[in-house]
């Protein structure tokens, strides 16, 4: 599991790679929060395109970042969600509070 963080203006993009579970989420959380602390972004984009597996720890990770950013008056977006990850996002209802940006959104798993 790895995260690649890039900064452009006031926007942080965190590109996640590999498997997200409780074991790997710890390190991801630290790296992302650390970058928020230092760079004070107005928007953070979590990019899930290269995530091969995610359990509900990934939802915990998103919720935690959402709360952290809300306190600071900043926003969170989610991108690169494939149908399998979308199944989890949908179950969690997270799309009602965070913008989930995905080409495949709702297409295959709506049933």
């Amino acid at each position: 599991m790895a995260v690649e963080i890039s900064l452009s203006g006031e926007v942080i993009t965190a590109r996640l790679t590999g498997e997200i579970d409780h074991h790997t989420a710890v390190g991801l959380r630290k790296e992302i929060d650390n970058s928020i602390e230092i760079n004070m972004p107005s928007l953070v984009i979590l990019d899930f395109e290269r995530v091969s597996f995610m359990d509900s720890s990934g939802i915990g990770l998103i919720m935690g970042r959402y709360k952290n950013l809300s306190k600071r008056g900043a926003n969170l977006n989610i991108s690169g969600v494939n149908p399998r990850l979308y199944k989890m996002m949908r179950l969690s209802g997270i799309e009602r509070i965070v913008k989930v940006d995905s080409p495949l959104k709702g297409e295959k798993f709506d049933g």
Partner: protein
Amino acid sequence: MADKNCFSMIVDSRSVNESFVRSVISTFAAVLDPTVEEISDIKTAVSEVVTNCIVHAYPDTIGKIYIKCNTEGNVLTVRIRDKGVGIPDVKKAMEPLYTTAGDERAGLGFAVMQSFMDYLRVYSKPEKGTTVIMKKHISVRYDLRR
């Protein structure tokens, strides 16, 4: 249709074993020729159960996680047990978004098991531990190349 096969396994409640156990169970299930979707569902549900053992059942110690699996016909059955703190009110614990842990747990573990698998039973006794039983029906595919 595959023969009846089974295995049982005991692992430490270390978080590094979350990926180990889900990969073992999905390898075991491979004889049933599941789709990528089905494998992903199984892996996710198993990951939830094992994580609960690590995070909730044995919060401050390394305990043992007891796993039994079998395939019969085209049904995979997974049974995961711990001897940890147990759950006082299982019904409440199973409600979506309910969690006794901090901000970083979503309270969705049981909801995932319920929605990604075809059968879920949870038995628990405070100070005795918890048993989760899940089943998944694997679709039968007619692949002419085989």
